[in-house]
């Protein structure tokens, strides 16, 4: 998300070079290396993504060896399904627009202003993003739901309205915009805008002509991410949508798990797949073209304390929004976890330590499960995503660009389909992994890989090719070039990627819910199970477990910010 923060490249004007020139720079040897780099991620995706998804689709659409495409018509003709499709689309669009509207001022404030506590606040706004969707759902339930804070205070309940969903989506994705757009914004050289001003452009014109075009790719990328996340939203809607609202993803889950209607689930999976593929294709076509070499500078040089009433009001406004929209739900979540029927206390937490009817094991064990699964998933995602990013950076070709887009697909594919696909497809030798613990980290890594690639790619691309050439001329083999030139420059990005991969693995719910074994639940699965049961104690325990999950994520994130801070002397 966040590009390496300090001066990665002082992108001097790239040498005028014939595009055809670069293609032939690395002759045969290069293609062998590239093939090697691509092979691992390609195999990973083939076995753990394409194969399970294909298996589930085949199971749904094949009957006695015959493909039944007529089912598309049957399923899509159903008015209920059509309503789901429409809702999925418009809520994603509305969530994206609302998130941009609310978060872009935040991106500006974080990029250009210095104020006390900025570092901490940056971490705070990122916490929601790495929170499991289940926790986000619970937090908003605690704020807006029955017996929630608003309900108690003014008798207002939003959990049956679409507003709860939209607000939860903004909450969840605020950081995506702030980090993607703000990260770039902070590195844009203000002198560019100053140059435009000197040339006679007004404030607004300078922004519109200089800054906005430079930001556009980042805004588009952020919007795409938010759209993808909300289009495929599962946990949030599962908890806040009740019986009224369902996205495609939720509907796939219902058809699969509740009605065992595999054909319907398969059709819906394919529809979602096609929609996501379409969005990604549009993205690839529009954004890539505008990916230009920007002159990036050290963000510390671009920010300053706010000046004048207008700027201070903007800063205050952003702080208020963060407080109400991001901090309040989390605070309420924590408060509810202590509010036992006997008054404030640790009652809910204590219950987590003992096994009862809901679980075969004490829910607290889910913490250990989640941490070890997420650690393994992170390692897998780093290897697969790192290799893929390295392969994609090496040369741009049509094949490679296609691969690049392919890497994003797991983000948009129904996690439920993947999870169920794992169960269905990976049950025969030589890949009988049904009872293997590695299944869960594998599924989680699938979601982590796109984050790793997205984080690494801009930084790898920003490494000046001539630095690599300089190293090669000085006697560094291709491997040493990577080790000595690329790696030090991307180490920070690698850490950030690791953090994101860890957080999304920790919070992964849609796929894990299918494949995590009953005696080895992860935190989100345990929370969802508790929420699914009636009774004040189950609700309270869910809040307590969510609080723990939130703390784990927050600690991981803070460690990450710490690591990045320590590394700053190196860059």
């Amino acid at each position: 998300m966040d590009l390496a923060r300090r001066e990665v490249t002082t992108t001097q004007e790239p040498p005028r070079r014939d595009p055809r020139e670069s293609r032939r720079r690395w002759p045969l040897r290069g293609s062998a290396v590239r093939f090697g780099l691509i092979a691992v991620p390609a195999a990973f995706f083939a076995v753990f993504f394409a194969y399970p998804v294909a298996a589930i689709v085949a199971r749904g659409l094949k009957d006695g060896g015959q493909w039944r495409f007529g089912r598309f018509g049957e399923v899509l003709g159903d008015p209920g399904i059509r309503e789901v499709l429409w809702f999925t689309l418009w809520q994603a669009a509305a969530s994206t627009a609302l998130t941009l509207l609310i978060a872009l001022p935040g991106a500006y404030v974080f990029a250009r202003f210095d104020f006390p506590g900025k570092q901490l606040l940056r971490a705070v706004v990122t916490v929601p993003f790495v929170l499991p969707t289940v926790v986000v759902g619970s937090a908003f339930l605690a704020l807006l739901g029955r017996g929630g804070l608003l309900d108690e205070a003014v008798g207002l309940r939003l959990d049956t309205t679409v507003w709860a969903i939209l607000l939860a989506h903004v909450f969840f994705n605020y950081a995506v915009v702030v980090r993607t757009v703000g990260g770039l914004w902070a590195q844009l050289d203000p002198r560019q805008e100053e140059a435009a001003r000197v040339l006679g452009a007004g404030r607004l014109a300078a922004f519109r002509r200089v800054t906005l075009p430079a930001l556009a790719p980042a805004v588009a990328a952020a919007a795409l991410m938010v759209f993808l996340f909300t289009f495929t939203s599962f946990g949030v809607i599962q908890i806040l949508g009740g019986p009224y609202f369902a996205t495609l993803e939720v509907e796939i889950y219902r058809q699969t798990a509740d009605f065992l209607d595999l054909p319907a689930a398969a059709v819906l999976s394919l529809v979602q797949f096609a929609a996501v593929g379409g969005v990604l294709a549009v993205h690839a076509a529009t954004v890539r073209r505008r990916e230009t070499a920007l002159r990036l500078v050290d963000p510390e040089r671009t920010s300053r304390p706010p000046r004048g009433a207008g700027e201070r009001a903007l800063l205050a406004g952003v702080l208020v929004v963060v407080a109400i929209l991001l901090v309040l739900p989390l605070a309420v979540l924590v408060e509810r976890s202590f509010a036992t029927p006997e008054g404030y206390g640790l009652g809910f937490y204590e219950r987590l330590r003992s096994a009862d009817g809901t679980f075969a094991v004490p829910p607290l064990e889910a913490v250990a499960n989640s941490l070890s699964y997420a650690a393994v998933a992170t390692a897998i995602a780093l290897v697969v995503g790192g290799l893929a990013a390295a392969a994609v950076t090496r040369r741009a070709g049509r094949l490679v660009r296609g691969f690049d887009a392919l890497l994003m697909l797991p983000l948009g594919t129904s996690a439920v389909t993947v999870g169920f696909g794992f169960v269905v497809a990976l049950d025969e030798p030589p890949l009988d992994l049904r009872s293997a613990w590695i299944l869960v980290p594998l599924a989680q890594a699938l979601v982590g890989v796109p984050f790793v690639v997205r984080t690494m790619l801009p930084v790898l691309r920003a490494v000046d090719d001539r630095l690599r050439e300089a190293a090669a001329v000085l006697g560094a083999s291709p491997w040493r070039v990577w080790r000595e030139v690329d790696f030090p420059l991307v180490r920070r990005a690698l850490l950030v990627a690791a953090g994101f991969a860890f957080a999304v693995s920790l919070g992964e719910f849609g796929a894990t819910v299918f494949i995590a074994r009953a005696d080895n639940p992860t935190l989100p699965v345990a929370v969802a199970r508790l929420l699914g049961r009636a009774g004040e104690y189950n609700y309270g325990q869910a809040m307590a477990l969510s609080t723990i999950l939130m703390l784990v994520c927050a600690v991981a994130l803070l460690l990450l910010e710490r690591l990045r801070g320590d590394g700053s002397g190196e860059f």
Partner: protein
Amino acid sequence: MLTLTDVTVRFGDRTAVDGVSLAVAEHETVCVLGPSGSGKSTLLRAIAGLQTTDAGRISLAGRDLAGVPVHRRGVGLMFQDHQLFPQRDVAGNVGFGPRMHGVPREEAAARTAELLGLVGLPGAGRRAVATLSGGEQQRVALARALAPRPELLMLDEPLGQLDRSLRERLVVELRRLFRDLGTTVLAVTHDQGEAFALADRVVVMDAGRIAQTGTPVEVWQRPASAFVARFLGFTNVADATVHGAVADTPWGKVPVPADAAQGGRTVLIRPAGVRLTGVADGLPCHVEGRTFRGDHVLVLLRPDDAPPLEAACPLTEAPEPGTTVGAQFLAEHVSVLGA
């Protein structure tokens, strides 16, 4: 030491380097001089192995470099904009090459210190490259290129981005350094002053081909073609017909040295060979402008129906712009090219 035979590099249907043959002897400093786009940088990249060649042979110290990857070629290349590794300090940059070649740590450190001393930056090892001035960066880049003891050191516009006075000083330093170290050097530049000050031999390139090879004095005194003469900054160049000691030019009859080649030729009149007289005594010219050149003034003249002329003229005798003067030509400053 370095031998190129008919080296050709094409980018699609554009030929960047066109059948170049060139030899650089041991301890020799050769400068490839040419305007941007003449293919000189591509030539360096081809020798370094950063650019595949379409035809021809490159050999270094008797070893054919075909198929040898960049890191095993044993050449040093100093990049145009230095390309210092931003995340390493000065010593980390200079010591990079020895480290890649498996030189033990202490030895590499000693080599680094020695080179930093040589380039005039003793004790700068711990400095961050971002804190270096342009000239210092240039020195560090040079030390880094020299550190692995390359058989051939190549410099791409070595002084291109530095200011004038620094450049003039560094040229002298470089020349001394290369002589002392006995380094074999192949440099490319678009600046004739730099090339002539640095090189034992100059190679002028035009559109991927070699236009002329020779010592600086040879090239300066006898440019091989109108292109070379113009590239060296001469403007008084024109087609002419030579009969005996007289050339028939657009500026009228111009005396040429007695041994000049005969027939249809290109004639170069150095500014010093244009003497200003009264209007009646020479080619009538309108004085368009003057440029001070330190010890003399360059006067831009426009004859009635001939190309403009440049004349060098003592400071005190320069005519005012707007006046009309006559121009006479001195045979000792006139060259007949291509012979």
